[in-house]
Structure formats: C-alpha cells, structure tokens
C-alpha cells in the first residue's frame, strides 16, 4: 500500500485526485455500511430490534458522494437508506446501533425516531423525518443561509426516485435554481418505490428534470463509486464557484426488500434481483482495488473481520445501553422543557 497522500496518476482513482489510501478508505466505508445492514437485518429477524430499512446496493453511490464533499464544512441532508453516507461523514456504527435499538444515547434522536432518521448537529447532518422529500427545501434553505453569510460550503441532499415526484422536490429545485444556490441534489434511483417499479412512477428521466429548473442534471452509474465521486466533486466545484445547483441521478438497484416489513418477491422476481446482485458495487470496487494492485484477498478478509468486530461491539453496547426514561416523554417539545424539572 502506498503512503497516504501519494497520488498515482495512472490509476482511475488517481486521475480523480484520490490517493491509494483514500481509495481504500472509500472501500472500508462501503464494507462497513454493508456489514451494518447485514447485522441489522439479523437483529430484526432475531427480535432484538423492531425494524430495519436497508441501503444494500446503494453503498457505492453513498460513499462516493460523501468523499467528494468537504466533510469538515458541508451540510448533509441524507435520506433513510444512507448508512454508507452517514458513516463516511463521521457517524459511528455504535451511533447507528444505538438508533436501531432506540436507546437514550442515540445521537440522532435520543431513541425517538425510527432507524435511518439521521441527525447530528456536530457532524452537520441535518435532522430528517419520514414524510419524504421535505429535506430538499431544507437543503435549499441551508444553502441560502450559507450564501447570505458568505460561507464557502455546499449542502448535499439525497432521496429516492419515488420521492422525486413529491412537490417538495420540485419546489426546492425551482427555488435553488432561481437563486443559484450551492446545493447538490442527488437522487438514489433504486428503481422501486416500495412495490411500484420505476416505469409506473415516471415516464421520463429524473436527471432531465433539472433542465426545467435551469441547472445541469446528470445520470451516473450508482454502482460505480468513482463515477459518483467524480460527478459530486464536479458539482461541488460548480457550487463553490457560484454556478448554482446540480441534480445527480445515481442509478442503483434496491437489492433488499423495502424494509423488514416487506416481502419483495410478491412484486418482483428472484431472477431480476439475482441479476442485479451481479452488478453490486461493493465486490465490483473490491476487484478494481485488487486490479490496481493496492488491495489483496488477505487484506479483504482482514477488513471483513474488523467490520464484523466493530458491529459486534456496537451491537453489544447498544443492546445493553439504557432506554430513554418515560419521564422524558415531554422533554424538548419547546426550548427549556424538562430542564427545570427535579
């Protein structure tokens, strides 16, 4: 492995400005997200947690995007499948497990929200909800405020293709376009809105919608982590130059059912799902790293072991952590609530 910071201009990642160490770091987060997902599914099936909504098949798009952003300055408005994204910007497996177990120490919501509803002011992950796409206008508002304050940063927001039919997507895009705001709007098109396939959701391309709002829209292969990285990096540069928003449509496939409450084989075939596992971005990227001569099967085994260990530790911690107190039910409805009690 080459030293961190060395950039090999001959490799694909090197041409994008990524060092070998960064290229490997990307893979680590993809693997971490995958392992978190697998562990959560097991925990739900074992009755340890109530619910899990998966991001399997979307890790490449999520981690590729995160690495193209300024993880010290930018604001993030992820949606509920973005485990790979939030891990990449600083959330830990323990944080996510605390959320999955709905424990008091959960930094996202103090155990109040469903898993996948991220939020951390420290990490500039803006709190999210379940009604879809409400976060798009929020991202636009963050970008507007940053622009008013003269701060050099972007806001980055994601959502699914089903959500892109909500008014808030269109209202947010239009507002951002009018004011040329530094916001990157990324659709993770996984081709299903629960059971409704893409051809019953929309008749055009999501990326084409940007045309109507006066900014570029591009479609990328969301299974190709470096392609997503390149697109988001370019979008960020445009935003910082004051050239406004970019819409990115990352084409992925939801390899898992919608959630642990869904039986996907009621509306799609096993053959279709299997064919898409062949396109999975995680092993594809692993092979790329091996072919680039910076990764080996032995290292991969080691990484898998490490991730498994991290998930085990996170699970044990979250499992034994205390729940929030019933007495705190009415805490934080308004400022100061509960702070003068006792």
């Amino acid at each position, binding site marked *: 492995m080459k030293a961190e910071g060395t950039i090999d201009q001959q490799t694909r990642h090197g041409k994008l400005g990524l060092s070998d160490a960064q290229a490997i770091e990307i893979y680590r987060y993809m693997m971490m997200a995958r392992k978190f997902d697998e562990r959560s599914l097991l925990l739900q099936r074992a009755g340890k947690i109530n619910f899990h909504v998966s991001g399997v098949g979307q890790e490449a798009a999520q981690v590729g995007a995160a690495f193209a952003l300024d993880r010290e300055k930018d604001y993030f408005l992820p949606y509920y499948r973005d485990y790979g994204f939030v891990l990449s910007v600083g959330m830990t497996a323990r944080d996510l497990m605390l959320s999955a177990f709905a424990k008091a120490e959960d930094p996202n919501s103090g155990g109040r929200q469903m898993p996948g509803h991220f939020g951390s002011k420290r990490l500039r992950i803006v709190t999210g909800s379940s009604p879809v796409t*409400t976060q798009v*206008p929020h991202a*636009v*508002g963050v970008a507007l405020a940053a622009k008013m304050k003269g701060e050099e940063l972007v806001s980055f927001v994601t959502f699914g293709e089903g959500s892109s039919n909500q008014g*808030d997507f269109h*209202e947010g895009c239009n507002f951002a376009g009018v004011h040329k705001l530094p916001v990157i709007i990324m659709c993770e098109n996984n081709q299903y809105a629960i059971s409704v396939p893409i051809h019953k959701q929309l008749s055009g391309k999501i990326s084409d919608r940007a045309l109507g709002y006066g900014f570029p829209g591009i479609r990328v292969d969301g299974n190709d982590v470096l392609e997503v990285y390149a697109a988001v990096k370019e979008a960020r540069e445009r935003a910082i130059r004051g050239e406004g928003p970019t819409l990115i449509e990352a084409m992925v496939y939801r390899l898992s059912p919608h959630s642990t409450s869904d039986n996907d084989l009621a509306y799609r075939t096993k053959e279709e799902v299997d064919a898409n596992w062949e396109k999975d971005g995680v092993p594809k990227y692993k092979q790329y790293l091996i072919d680039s001569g910076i990764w080996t099967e032995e290292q991969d085994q080691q990484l898998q072991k490490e991730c498994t260990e991290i998930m085990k530790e996170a699970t044990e911690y979250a499992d034994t952590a205390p729940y929030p107190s019933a007495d705190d039910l009415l805490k*934080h*409805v308004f400022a100061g609530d509960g702070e003068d009690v006792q």
Partner: protein
Amino acid sequence: MAMMEYIDAIRLAMKEEMALDENVFVLGEDVGVKGGVFTTTKGLQEVYGEDRVMDTPLSESAIAGVAIGAAMYGMKPIAEMQYSDFMLPATNQIISEAAKIRYRSNNDWTCPIVVRAPIGGGIFGGLYHSQCMESVFFGTAGLKIVAPYSAYDAKGLLKAAVRDPDPVLFFENKKCYKLIKGDVPEDDYVVPIGKANLLREGDDITVISYSLPLHFIMQAAEELEQEGITSHVLDLRTIQPLDRQAIIDAARRTGKVLIVHEDNLTGGVGGEVAAIIAEECLFDLDAPIRRLAGPDSPAMPINPPQEKAYMLNKDKVKAAMRDLALF
C-alpha cells in the same frame, strides 16, 4: 408613543427586529419590490436589500421549507404566507417538520421560524381569501400560535415571535390591518408569548376570545354596561400554548362564560377552552359554557348577504352576551 394602524405595527416590528439582528430576514410572495399585497412589508426592501426581503417563487411549501432549512443553519426567518388560506401546501413542512425538529433531534437541532399569515373575512374575499386557519394547526405540539387583536399587541407579539427559539405561527387579522389603530410605543418592547391579557373587568359574564372579535366584544361590553351588565373580557393573545390559569381565573370570576372566535365552531380553539373550564371550574359555573363562532360552512361566500351572515359583528356578540347574562 405614536398612533398607528395595526398593519404599521407589524411592519415596524419587522423593521426593528431586522435592525437588531442581522440573521432576521423576510421571505414570501411579493414581499420585496411591491411590499406585500397588503403593504405589510412596504419599504423594507429599500432599507435591508433584496437578500433580506426576498421575493420568492409562488411556492408555499418551499417558502416554509427553505425558511426551516435557513433556521436550522442559524438564521431567523420570517416567512410570509400571502393569505392563511394558501398555507395548506406548507402544512407538511410546518406540522411534520418545524413543529418536530427540536423534539425529534432530542434538542440537537432547533427551528426558530416565524410564519406570518393573514386570517379572517369580511373583506369580500370569498371562500379562499377569508378563512381562519388556526384550528388546522391548533393541537400540534411544538408550534406556538399567536393572534393579536390590537396594534400594540401586533408589534409586541411579532417581536416576541422573532426572538422565540421555537416555531411561531403569527396569525394577523387582515380586517384589522387598516381598521384598527392604537398607541404603539416606539421603544423596544415585547408582549410575552403564552400569556393571556385581561382587557376589561366585570362581574356578570366572562367573554374569552382572540383577534378581531374582541373589538366587537369590547364595544358590546361598553353598551351592555348601560344596561347594568358588566363583562370580564379575556384576550387569549396566544392560542397555543393556552394560558390555562388565566382562563380558569377569568371563568371563576363570573361563573358565566362565552367563548368567541371567527374560525369554525367545530374543532375550533373554543372547544379546548371550554374543556379546560369544564375540567377545572365545574362547581364555579352558574350557566352552561357557551360558544359563538363561525358557522360550520366550508368557508365564507363572497356575496354580501352570506358574508354578513357568516361574519361576527357587534350585534351578534352583544346578543349572545346579554343572553348569557340573563341566564
């Protein structure tokens, strides 16, 4: 102290708060160059520029949603809805988002926005320029809702709303804009959110209300005094959270309570006020709790006879007050 119209007091509150805090900005449809369809923001853009008095696309959910995003970043947005009738597209942003941001993030993120929206009829506005929207939002914990009746309160409550760390819906009554004038101090005062205000003391009946109908009530109370009926009049000022103690105290004072609002009777704020009194003051009551409110028609028609039939006025209020006094 200056005599000014209710609408001028609202404008002055914004002007002062924008001067005091550079994070305060106004956004909405036609608020900039035009100064608002009612002139509520007239002249503000000339003072504070296009960025801080921002004309937006005709897009209420974006107006609310962008304000929420900016507030989470640290700004203090005042989002104007041109008519409260048109804020329904923003309801998801207000109820699902603004109201829950502090709670759902366990106090990590906050949402200090003000949403200003004109309510009320009597201006030949027809179905969709006349409605009162309080009951749509009333009952959503996490939202504060205020509804001033005077110019003094309009300025003081709006300034308090801007400074509040939580989302506040500011329902200004459009019929009051030019009709109501009053003394408004030019100094920096606030009217505290969550506190009701006793407008008149009396011993025969208690009338509890908010916004425009209080003017009818005060005129009626004056006239009824000539008939020997004295009225105890409480202005809720803040609809949510309700000032329970003030409601209880006012009800106990006379034992006869009339609750008045222009919003529809069914599901209106009056039902909750009546419930508080029923729970706390049963043995102090000398008459059934009464409500006088907008009829349960979907909205207010534009033709004069039906608009008049829908609207409250001094005579309707006076009749209800006298009737209760004579119970």
